[in-house]
């Protein structure tokens, strides 16, 4: 079974530039999460999709971050404009239906803003 795919693996941009990350979840997983992991910290939830609808974006800085999940499959996370403090690893995860399930994570995209 293929895992969660993310691209790119690494990205370096200057502050005020824009950047986009892509995620392809495990086939059939209805729930998709984007987490931000700052160095030395645990992952923090940015946004959660159920199929193609947003169910939780309370921690997403909506003035600069946006995300979409078209057709309930792939998802993109965008930052525009980026700030230095956005430097982090962005993790995508998906989960099958049911409460007694775990999230499956991709390898992440490491973003460095200079």
């Amino acid at each position, binding site marked *: 079974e293929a895992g969660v795919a993310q691209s790119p693996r690494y990205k370096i941009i200057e502050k005020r530039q824009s950047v986009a990350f892509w995620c392809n979840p495990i086939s059939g997983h209805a729930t998709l999460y984007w987490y931000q992991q700052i160095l030395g910290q*645990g992952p923090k939830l940015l946004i959660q999709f159920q199929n193609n609808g947003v169910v*939780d974006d309370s921690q997403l800085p909506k003035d600069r971050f946006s995300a979409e999940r078209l057709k309930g499959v792939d998802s993109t996370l965008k930052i525009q404009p980026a700030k230095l403090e956005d430097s982090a690893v962005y993790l995508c995860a998906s989960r099958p239906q049911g409460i007694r399930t775990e999230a499956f*994570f991709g390898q992440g995209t490491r973003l460095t803003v200079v």
Partner: protein
Amino acid sequence: AQSVTQPDIHITVSEGASLELRCNYSYGATPYLFWYVQSPGQGLQLLLKYFSGDTLVQGIKGFEAEFKRSQSSFNLRKPSVHWSDAAEYFCAVGTTTSGTYKYIFGTGTRLKVLA
């Protein structure tokens, strides 16, 4: 509010020694608990999970964890550590809020293994 605390930021053990990583959670209902491991440059890999039943759960790579409701703890253990176990370990709780299910992570414990 739900939270997960991992009190040890760094732990160093010698290869072959036993290991215990601590995790305490705060959650009003029955918790669903997880331990994930993250090697450098990698995503998170599930080690083990607890939903209900036997409070001692076995995971991959020889790890086990014990759920203690009275102490709100879910500590991870391994009897004999291997050099390849050096990584960062995250405890997480699965929570249901307003019909949505999400995971809250601790800040992680970085494990160093001495040869």
